């Protein structure tokens, strides 16, 4: 990539040492050398393997290697058929029309690895990893739904995002992205009939029996419209009286195709879409996206921009946790706390509005920095909030956490341990409530989090109550971080000098015709990112969130995979709720803290 656009170099991640240790261990401990290590992926070690050897390698990484990779962090695919730049010479990637991408996480190594499997269009099939990881179930269904790749041995390979009657696989490059690209939609009576028949509830399709030896079950359709499912989320319940025999979650009602949109939007214009992934997280959603692009382009973000980002993210973490806290109390029947907490959240939005101009979706981070500098008087607003909030939090503690009725409702309900959490891909507060002190902000600091002093709250009950307590204590830690941002806000630019910073700094555009052209091109077409593949996970409000970005050297993403925390969390609901009552299920749902936009994307 030469020419007007800058020649960028990869910035190696600071996690080089962990990656090299892993590669050393792999060479030493794994008997086969049937993998290929892709040298130009510097964000995490990337192994290519053929599909016969996939399961043995995964099994080895999960259980045999020293300090194993206990979590299947993500599973997705790339339609490579239109890709131009797949490496030359030494970097040449194996021939592939569809590539499966597995991402594993080791909490002991603090390391992610990527495993890729090349598939040809004529034989789109791979062995299912469900026998290794329980949470592979939904991921494989998603890949099948959106790419049409089959998984041999999958127990229930049905559509998960799209309606059961959908034709085609939307994330394939030959599937249309907009309704205007196809014939106008018509609903004929036959089509309507077919659609309605597809909606009929047959418990057998959901893997549930109609009756046991002793009882005939009642099936209760909880959602997609129900006051306590926090959006459009459906759970089919198999009930014996009020006791839950089985619960089968059904998602996809909030699917907007955010990943498909990324393939049309310019790098810069996609930022507002990220805001709407976890719509309670605000600018926190921008962060993994811009961090990934910055790593791809080799942009050094100035210290002030980094600190502003951290401050805004923590403000949004508090806002999101307050919504959780209030609705959690509300879902176990306590009516008032949510109103008090929304008052506080309103104060937060006041600050966010003063700084960014937006409230829930400011879309305020930019590639290379943030949109504007902080306004005058920002420090006074933040200081007032920091002085105001602790008294409120103490009041809530007495109202909610110390409430004996609430404790009776939530203690020992929806329990899982650390091992199960890792197996199911649980991250964030849900993982820390099992006693594992693992927070990405500490383990793999990004955006300057290593400069801050804060603790990782943990509790070891793994139940609904502890998940609530962990989040409550995280609000305190966020206040601490914001206080440090306030006291130590660096001076300097709020945006990088790098040519790929979007939009570029004005002062650098009015010099001569060349810089003016670049400014114009960067603003109209958008910047051109160097070829490559990158993924930077962050500790978002609800768990680990990351954008796995494949750039083919164009003005938009070739593939943009959004890994959200809520998706695997919901998958665990059946395990958490079996044998409990309907009221407990509501407490469990409330304690997970998900938003459906984050699940379905």
């Amino acid at each position, binding site marked *: 990539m030469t020419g007007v656009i800058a020649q960028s170099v990869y910035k190696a991640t600071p996690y080089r040492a962990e990656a090299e240790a892993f590669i050393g261990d792999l060479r030493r401990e794994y008997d086969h050398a049937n993998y290929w290590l892709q040298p130009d992926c510097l964000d995490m070690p990337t192994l290519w393997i053929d599909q016969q050897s996939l399961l043995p390698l995964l099994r080895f990484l999960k259980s045999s290697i020293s300090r194993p990779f206990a979590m299947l962090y993500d599973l997705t695919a790339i339609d490579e058929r239109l890709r131009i730049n797949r490496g030359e010479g030494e970097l040449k990637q194996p021939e592939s029309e569809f590539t499966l991408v597995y991402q594993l996480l080791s909490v002991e190594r603090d390391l992610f690895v990527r495993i890729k499997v090349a598939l040809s269009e004529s034989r789109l099939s791979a062995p299912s990893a469900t026998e290794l990881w329980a949470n592979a179930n939904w991921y494989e269904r998603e890949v099948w739904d959106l790419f049409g790749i089959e998984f041999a041995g999958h127990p229930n390979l049905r559509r998960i995002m799209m309606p059961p009657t959908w034709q085609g696989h939307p994330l394939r490059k030959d599937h249309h992205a907009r309704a205007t690209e196809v014939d106008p939609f018509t609903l004929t009576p036959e089509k309507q009939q077919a659609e309605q028949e597809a909606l009929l509830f047959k418990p057998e399709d959901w893997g549930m029996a109609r009756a046991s030896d002793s009882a005939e079950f009642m099936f209760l359709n909880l959602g997609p419209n129900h006051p306590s499912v926090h959006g459009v989320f459906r759970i089919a319940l198999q009930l014996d009286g*009020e006791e839950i025999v089985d619960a089968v979650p059904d998602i996809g009602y909030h699917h907007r195709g955010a990943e498909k949109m990324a393939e049309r939007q310019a790098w810069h214009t996609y930022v507002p879409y990220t805001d709407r992934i976890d719509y309670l997280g605000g600018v926190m959603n921008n962060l993994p996206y811009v961090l990934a692009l910055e790593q791809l382009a080799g942009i050094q973000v100035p210290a002030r921009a980094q600190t502003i980002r951290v401050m805004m993210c923590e403000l949004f973490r508090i806002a999101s946790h307050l919504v959780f806290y209030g609705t959690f109390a509300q879902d*176990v*029947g*306590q009516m008032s706390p949510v*109103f008090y907490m929304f008052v506080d959240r309103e104060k937060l939005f006041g600050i966010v509005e003063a700084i960014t101009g937006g409230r829930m979706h400011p879309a305020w981070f930019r590639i290379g920095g943030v949109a504007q500098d902080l306004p005058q008087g920002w420090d006074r607003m933040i200081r007032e909030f920091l002085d105001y909030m602790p008294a409120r939090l103490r009041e809530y503690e007495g109202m909610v956490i110390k*409430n004996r009725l*609430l404790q009776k*409702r939530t203690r020992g309900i929806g329990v899982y341990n650390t091992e199960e959490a890792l197996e199911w891909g649980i991250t964030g507060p849900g993982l820390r409530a099992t006693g594992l002190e693992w927070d990405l902000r500490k383990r793999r600091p990004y955006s300057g989090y290593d400069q801050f002093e804060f603790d990782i709250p943990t509790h070891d009950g793994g139940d609904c109550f502890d998940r609530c307590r962990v989040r409550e204590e995280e609000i305190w830690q966020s206040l601490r971080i914001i206080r440090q941002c306030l006291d130590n806000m660096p001076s300097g630019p709020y945006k990088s000098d790098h040519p790929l910073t979007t939009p570029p700094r004005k002062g650098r555009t009015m010099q001569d015709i060349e810089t003016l052209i670049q400014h114009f091109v960067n603003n109209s077409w958008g910047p051109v990112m160097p070829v490559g593949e990158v993924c930077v996970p962050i500790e978002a409000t609800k768990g680990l969130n990351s954008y796995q970005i494949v750039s083919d050297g164009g003005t938009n993403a070739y593939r943009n995979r959004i890994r959200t925390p809520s998706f695997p969390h919901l998958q665990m609901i059946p395990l958490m709720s079996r044998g409990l009552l309907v*009221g407990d299920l*509501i407490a469990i749902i409330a304690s997970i803290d998900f938003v459906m936009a984050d699940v379905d994307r």
Partner: protein
Amino acid sequence: MTAPAWITLLNIFGVLIAAVLLAALLTWGERRLLGFWQDRPGPNRVGPFGLLQVVADMIKLFFKEDFVPRFADIPVFILAPTVVMATMLLGFVVIPVSPTIGVIDLNIGLLFILAMSSMAVYSVILGGYASNNKYALLGGLRAAAQTVSYEVFMGLSLMGVVMLAGSFNLREIVQAQESGWYILPQFIGFFVFFIAGIAESHRLPFDLPEAEHELTAGFHTEYSGMKFGMFFVGEYLSVILISALITTLFLGGWLGPWLPPVVWFALKTGLLVMLFVLLRAAIPRPRYDQLMQFGWKVMLPLSLLNLLATAGVLLWIG
């Protein structure tokens, strides 16, 4: 005691209309109070202080389509909401508002009220059953179980008062409190009855039959328009009735210095109603089985002990 017919009629219509109007007003009052406690305005747009909100709501409910789901058991579906209205209004008949106000002076007044409030649960059960909806069914089941459990000690908790007063007649019970309100000697009875009363009127924290977070709207999921309105007003009627009954039995009814008896009665009842609303604002909902356990394992023994102690003391004094 025979009063002229017009006084009797005035009493009948006065009490009943006042009860219904107050219940309707309470739909506004509760929202305002909750708003006050929850840092928000509540309905304050229609009329002075939003008072005409009641009228606006009424107009809305009356003009809504009177919808009956086609899968429902139609006669029962229509009957169910009327039961709660009717029984609750009948309950007011025996409440002695003041020495001169009160529809009827029944010598088994207390039993009559207990009977009426037991009848009211049919409304919930029938409504839940006739809707032919699973949420409604679960709500109805919960209501049945809850009522069976709480009815038992609801009655038992009042027997202490009956023993002290030596009568089932509500007027005589009030008069017997000239020397001191029964809330002091019968505090346990008061406590148990108050809790049972909340359960009886399906108010939070005992609103499990409707528990909107679990069962969407529970037994009245399928109801809309005025039929829903009747359930709604019925609930408020029962809140007022239970408060009035507590006033009568434990707080000396209309008794009090300086102010006229009606005012005393209204004040005490009003405060209790506010307490009901405050509870709703403050407390989470226990789980269904926890509620049952609490009833059978704590409340029932407590009311039995209270009964035993009261009887013992009375025998001792002679």
